[in-house]
Structure formats: C-alpha cells, structure tokens
C-alpha cells in the first residue's frame, strides 16, 4: 500500500475541521477525493504533505502511513526530504505556484538538484528531457521562458514537471484542472493518466468535479463537512451510491438534454466548521434523516461501498 490514512483528525486552533478520515491508495492506483468547498479535501492533502503547520493546524489523531513510513512522526527536516522528493504536489492555480521572476527551467532543475543530488548540467538535461516527456514541443527553448510568457495549460504542465522532477512514487493533485478551460483540462487529464500508467505512479486526485472522477479514478472517497461519508470503487460509487449525500451529489450533475431530467439540488448549505451538526453531519440537509441521525454519528458500514449512514444497508 502506497498511502494509508487511518482515522485522521486535524485541529486548527479550537476548531476540528477533519475527523475520522480513512482511505487507502495502492501502487499505480488513482484515488479521487471529491466534495464541495469546505468538505476538507484540500486539508486532507495538506495533512499528507505535512503542511498543516503553515496554517497553525495539527494532527490530533490517527496515522498517515506512506510506503511503510509513519508520516505523523516525522520531523520537519525528514519531511522536507519526502516533500517534492518521493511525494510530488500539483496545486490548483498554476499562475501562483511558479516564481514569476525566474525562468521556468531552473525552477524545475532545483527539485532534481535538491532531491537527487544532480549537478547543474545534469539537472538541466533532465529537465529538458522531462519537458519533452510532457509533450511540450521545443523543450530546449521553453526552458528559458518566464511564466508570464506561457498560457495557463502550459504553466500547469510546468507545475507537473516540477512535481515529477525527483521521480516521485506518489503524486497529489489538488484541483489540477479547475483553473483551466475545458479543452485544456482534457489535455492535462490525459497527460496525468498517461503518467500514472507509464510511470506506475499512485495519484491522489482532489476535485469537486464528479465527471473528472468518473473519467480518471479507480476508487473514490466522498467527503462532507470534514468526514468521509462514502468510499468505494468508481463503478460502485456511480452505479449504486449508498450514502444520501453521494446520491444527491450525483443528482446535481447536469446531464442529458433539455427537459430530459430535472436537476435536484441539495437544500441548505454546507455547514461551517465551527457549527458542525451533532450526529450525522449531513442530517439537516438529508431527505432520509430520522431521529437517530441527529444524535448518533454513523460509522462507515462496509457494504459493497463503505457508507457512513444509518441506512446504508437498506435498499433505496
């Protein structure tokens, strides 16, 4: 198992934005974490990357195991070796993840120099080769460009190149295509999927877009208000979602032609982290909620999918 997150709980000051988050990611697998804004999906990624101290957060319970190493016990110095080394990160906004004052080539070089101990020249050759692998035409000239000279899609390829520069085993992509146009998004998704296959990478893909998940993932983790409400294979999640939230989320996706279906929104809004409801956190918005839902937190019930719902085993 490449990554095993078990019962992860996170606190930031007095609030507890994440609790009981568990999922596994195998070698060569793509796992999607989906949820709306405020569901805690990015925070999960930050926890794995050891970036919580940046926002005054800390892990209060659970474990994160990366290929046999317990990450929650690492010192910052040890983390620095992993981060950008064996774990690569692709962030949402390529406009802000590159240094605007440096040429893009050297920005990629530095990763290989730091993590692989390559010399200046070797790092540079490696970067040019890598850019070629990412289907960037004329990589030797691209090497000398500044970020502002590139389109959004091209910048995202550069960010992907930086994430890959030290030959990682695990890639965490946090909304990698959200800031991009649809045709460019499709190209970046294609690139990521090819990389997963060619390099046998494990990919943790964080997105709010159920269609991107359907296109790319092997397994899906559905998050709501800082907890995992359902997880399973992508087929099981889309064919027979057990949690009412997953069902509702799928019902929100426009599909088909005009008049063929009626979009079903979810009433109410995602609760704020300071006022998570008692019991099942989805119960105030849930059409199936009963008295028990307001008081008792449902456990993840292992069925075909694992759903944290008191009625997960009942036929819908």
């Amino acid at each position, binding site marked *: 198992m490449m990554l095993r997150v078990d019962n992860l709980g996170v606190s930031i000051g007095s609030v507890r934005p994440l609790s009981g988050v568990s999922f596994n990611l195998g070698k060569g697998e793509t796992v999607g974490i989906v949820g*709306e804004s405020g569901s805690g999906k990015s925070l999960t990624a930050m926890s794995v990357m050891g970036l919580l101290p940046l926002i005054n957060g800390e892990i209060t319970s659970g474990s994160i195991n990366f290929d046999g190493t317990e990450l929650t016990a690492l010192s910052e110095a040890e983390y620095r070796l992993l981060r950008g080394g064996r774990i690569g990160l692709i962030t949402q906004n390529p406009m802000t993840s590159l240094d605007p004052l440096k040429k893009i080539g050297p920005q990629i070089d530095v990763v290989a120099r730091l993590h692989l101990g390559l010399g200046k020249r070797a790092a540079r050759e490696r970067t040019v080769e890598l850019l070629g692998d990412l289907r960037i035409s004329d990589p030797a000239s691209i090497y000398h460009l500044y970020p502002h000279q590139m389109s959004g899609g091209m910048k995202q390829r550069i960010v992907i190149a930086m994430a890959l520069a030290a030959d990682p085993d695990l890639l965490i992509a946090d909304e990698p295509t959200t800031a991009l146009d649809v045709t460019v998004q499709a190209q970046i998704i294609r690139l990521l999927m090819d990389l997963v296959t060619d390099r046998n990478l494990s990919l943790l893909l964080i997105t709010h877009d*159920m269609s991107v998940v*359907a*296109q790319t993932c092997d397994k899906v983790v559905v998050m709501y208000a800082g907890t995992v409400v359902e997880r399973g294979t992508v087929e099981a999640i889309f064919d027979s979602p057990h949690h009412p939230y997953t069902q509702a*989320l799928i019902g929100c996706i426009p*599909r088909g032609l*005009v008049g063929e279906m009626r979009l*079903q929104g979810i009433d109410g809004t995602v609760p704020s982290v300071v006022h998570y409801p008692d019991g099942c956190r989805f119960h105030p918005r849930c059409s199936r909620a009963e008295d028990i839902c307001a008081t008792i937190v449902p456990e993840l019930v292992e069925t075909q999918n694992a759903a944290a719902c008191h009625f997960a085993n009942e036929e819908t």
Partner: protein
Amino acid sequence: MSELLEVRNLSKQFSSHRGLFHARRTMYAVNDVSFALPAGRVVGVVGESGCGKSTLARLILRLIEPSDGTVSFDGLALLKQRAGDMRRLRARMQMVFQDPYSAIDPRYTIARAVMEPFQIQGKRFTTAEATATVEELLAMVGLSEQMADSYPHQLSGGQKQRVGIARALALKPALLVLDEPTASLDVSVQAQIIGLLEQLRDELNLTYLFISHDLALVKYFCDEVLVMYMGRIVEAMPSTDVNPRHPYSKTLLDSTFEPDPKQRRNIEALSDEVPSPFDLGSGCAFAARCPSVSARCRNETPILSTPGRSHAVACHHPN
C-alpha cells in the same frame, strides 16, 4: 416573427498600444456576430475564456458600445436610443453577473440592494410599499424576508446569487442575460440556482441568453446553442440534440466528461495553445488546432452558413 432580440453583424474591437515603438494592435473581441432570440426561448452561448461571450453580453445590453452592427430589442434599434430612453429600456433587459461577490455593494443591506433598480429608474415607494416589494422579491428567489437587513458578507455564494437574480427581476424584465451565473458556485448550489431559473422562466415567461463555458450545463438548460471561438459564432445549433458539425464544437464536446465511469472518453491529443486574439489574419481562427485543417482554412475565413433557425456552421469541412 416574434424575435425579442435581434443581433446583426455585431463587432467590437479593442486596440492596444504597447508604447511608442510598437505598432498598435487590434483585438476582435466580438467579430461579425448575428443571431436572433425569440421570446420565451433559452439560448446558450458557449465557449472558452477569451472567446468574447461576456463582451457579447455587454454589447447586447449596451453596457459597452459596439464598433459595428445593430441590436434590436422588441423592434427598437438599441444603438439609436438616447441615454434616457436607454435607461428606461434597460428595465426590460437585465443581467445577472458571474461573480455575486462583487456584483452587490458590500455596504448595502440586501433590501437596499434589491431596491436599487427602482431608485435608478426614479420610482418612489412608501416605506410600507418598499417593505412589501422587498419581501415579494426575496420570496420569488427563495430567500427569507429576515435576510432583508443582512449585509452581503453574511450570505453564502448561492444566497448572494439569488439576490443578484432578485435585483435583475425587480423591474419585471422580458429578457435576462445570464453571464455564467453558476460558475463560482458548488454543484449542489448550481443545481439550486438552475432550478430557480427554470421555475422563474415558466412563471414569468422570461427569455434567457445563457452564457457559459459548461457544455453539459448548456445542453441541459438551453433550447438553442451558439458556439463561440475567437470572437465569432462558429456554430449555431437549433436544438441541443443535434450532433455538432464544427470541429471546435466537437472538440468542446469531447472535452466534457460524462459522470459515468463506463463512458470514459478517449481524449484526442490537441494543441492547447490558443492563438493570440490580436491581429488574427485571414483564415479560420481554429485552423492551428483543427484536426481536419486544409490549405483553404488558412487563407479563407469561413462564414456562418444560413444564420437563423436552421443548423449553421462556419467551417470549410464540417462533419
């Protein structure tokens, strides 16, 4: 013909100069766009960032002045109207903006924000009338009357967008131009807002021009679709169940994923380098990225065939 809106050869150029030693460059944000919007229909304009769809929306409402072309609304030539007449006409054509965070003055209460259109039109209300109007408008968009005294920062994105819609509906318009009204919202909230727009269309007999980058949403919501690329309409589809004929529309469709893992797409490689919108030469703007490009495409700009009710396409080699 009951065309509520008719746009003919509408163009807008912006020019930039980068200093004394550089030539002035011209950007065709909207280039020779013609279409008609019949009363009661929902027409979608779909395209990627920079294709000119938002500029088109603003040109139609005359929020910016076109460089060329005509817009007629309910038989009146908009571009010939004087400022006062234009203001009165705008009561019947309203816009909902993409970003509800910046569309409402943060220092206004919701009640004041909703009443602002009346104030602009010079309508006076007694306090009781004003309260009743605010309540009615908020109820129409599914907000509780208790929100009237709140400020925008106390509302969620979806609630703010409902306020944006209430403002647009205040003057009982016939036409609503919706510029990516759900682009900044979560899917569950998007579904609520789209549901609200569907309901309002039926209740108030509204006509919508719906601008979006999301083809799946446009197919779901709209009766007709216009596909824009680099300032031009490259395809006009009279209904959403026809197959796209322009290679760009096809690319756009193929780039949209189905929410079903059994229908994964085989993504064709395509250059994602969109050409610069400045000084587009002759030829088709999509030529550099097009899989079925020929020499003719690089020299001769394809013209949109038969604009009107039928399926029209601006391509030398349509599917």
